[in-house]
């Protein structure tokens, strides 16, 4: 079966996020008030073929730990769903 994992990669608390700061600044200059903080991370969608959800999950866990996140400054979490959407294309 084809599962789709949504892997959320975020900076560890305490790691400076210059981009987030910049965006928060932009938000302010656009006149929005009461937006104390913005943090920017990555959203990685990974499609995996697997027999069971458990299998898919171990696979994604490994991929996340090995390559998607850098433990020095990032953490990641993910959710799994059965993939319904047609793949945009082969790559």
């Amino acid at each position, binding site marked *: 079966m084809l599962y789709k994992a949504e892997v959320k990669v975020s900076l560890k608390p305490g*790691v*400076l996020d*210059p*981009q987030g700061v*910049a965006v928060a600044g932009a938000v302010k200059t656009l006149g929005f008030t009461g937006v104390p903080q913005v943090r920017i991370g*990555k959203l990685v969608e990974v499609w995996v073929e697997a027999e069971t959800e458990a299998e898919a999950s171990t696979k994604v866990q490994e991929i996340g730990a090995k*390559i*998607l996140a*850098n433990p*020095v*400054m990032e953490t990641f979490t993910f959710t799994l769903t059965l993939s319904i959407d047609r793949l945009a294309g082969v790559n």
Partner: protein
Amino acid sequence: MRFGVVMFPGSNCELDAYHALANVLGQPTEYVWHQERDLARFDALLIAGGFSYGDYLRTGAIARFSPVMEAITGFAAEGKLVIGVCNGFQILCEAGLLPGALQRNAHLQFRCAPTYLRVENPNTPFTNAAQQGQLLSIPVNHGEGNYFADPETLNELNRYDQVLFRYANAQGQAIPEASPNGSKEHIAGIVNRRGNVAGMMPHPERASEAILGSADGLVIFQSMVNHLVGRAARV
């Protein structure tokens, strides 16, 4: 003595590094393709700058998985010399051969500009031709050279004299204004605890001839040569 210049798909400073080592310094030098596994013929490796695998996801994140990186891990374990310049530094951090990580420049812009590096530790294979506190004029060229490490790691780096260079102004002061990227403690280059694996964001090969604006980068390559031939001559 033989230098290897390691190139990955997307590397783009391998020509420059080769030029500095082979043509300027006159050292036997060869390119090393990312698929190579046998590095026995080399005494020192330079991992060239550029955008390995487009620097997609994170700089150096994908390159670290190439076959040559396995070989380099072994090469380093034998105590042989490895220096990563710019993208090479990023790759060594991703591979865990050096501590810390390189984040997006604090100002979020790419920066190609001259910088002064203050030599923090002249007693390494990469700096033995320099004096303590000597200022080297070597340019940076990166979008993600903002060195990050957690407090403990920074403490260790300092305790074991692993910081090779800090960004400084012309007067030799390491201050925020002198840093092109917002690195923690203005760190521009570090070495591993054992002292044989180094990484730096600035490009010594771009400061290898007076006509390019500075020849200070040769200090680093000359240091490596000195170390390998067991001399400690100063340039």
